[in-house]
């Protein structure tokens, strides 16, 4: 019991933080070792974006990646293990300000999706990335957290499902 109470998340463990800032907001931060100009390029060039958005450890591939990165432009990402077992994420860019800010919609869900804002903040030779998801309602964020539709990998979800099942069987 005591061990569990003391096992608070250790902020020093990783440079990536995730926090639910409010009922409608989820915020991810991380400092990247390069200036905003370059980080922005890696974010907005499809060939480069493809290389990092789906980490190798996730075990899924980005099958296709269409990005028209400009205000009003659309994007569509398809990923999965293969074509018959894939997930699509799509929406449009509301604002694209080179080297500093991108705002886009997440339209794949049935109901109102989040508006995502990523800012690229210069910190010396590095860039502080802040990814801010604003949901239309508390319920929408709760549902997204539960369903994993917040950019989550299918594998991650399966693991979560297994974990939840294990925990509930063990405790209920």
């Amino acid at each position, binding site marked *: 019991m005591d061990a569990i109470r003391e096992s608070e998340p250790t902020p020093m463990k990783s440079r990536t933080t995730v926090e639910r800032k409010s009922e409608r907001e989820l915020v991810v931060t991380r400092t990247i070792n390069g*200036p905003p100009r370059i980080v922005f390029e*890696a974010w907005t060039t499809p060939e480069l974006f493809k290389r990092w958005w789906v980490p*190798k450890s996730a075990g899924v591939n980005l099958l296709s990646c269409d990005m028209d990165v400009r205000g009003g432009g659309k994007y569509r990402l398809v990923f999965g293990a293969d074509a018959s077992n894939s997930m699509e994420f799509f929406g449009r860019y509301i604002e694209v300000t080179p080297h500093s800010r991108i705002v886009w919609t997440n339209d794949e869900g049935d109901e109102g999706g989040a508006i995502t804002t990523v800012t690229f903040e210069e910190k010396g030779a590095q860039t502080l990335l802040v990814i801010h998801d604003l949901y239309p309602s508390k319920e929408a964020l709760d549902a997204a957290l539960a369903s994993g539709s917040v950019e989550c990998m299918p594998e991650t979800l399966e693991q979560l499902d297994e974990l939840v099942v294990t925990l509930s069987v063990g405790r209920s």
Partner: protein
Amino acid sequence: MVQYTNARLDASFAALSDATRRGVLEQLGRSDASITDLAEKFHMTLTGMKKHVGVLEHAGLVTTEKVGRVRTCKLGLRRLEEEAAWIERYRELWDSRFDELDKVVEELKLKLKPKEKVDGRNKRE
């Protein structure tokens, strides 16, 4: 499964959205307490504290047990563990993403400055 998980997470996040309830959880993390103790500690009426504890109990964050006339509250850690696990997995996903992004950025820096030594401490004009 999604609906099941959804309802549970929903109740937990709702419970955690209130400062008093978070305070109650923190308090119960130190020691079990009766509703009367908690009401005093948080300068609330018994009825008010009962409501808060009810929300926490509904979310599975707290369990209560009545012995005689005293209802004792203790932490029910199940839901907290689930949420912490969710957040941690989400963080891990972004962390691996950013590790890959760092590699891409490193490559771009070398490509853009082929004749300069790039060591993360670029001279600024």
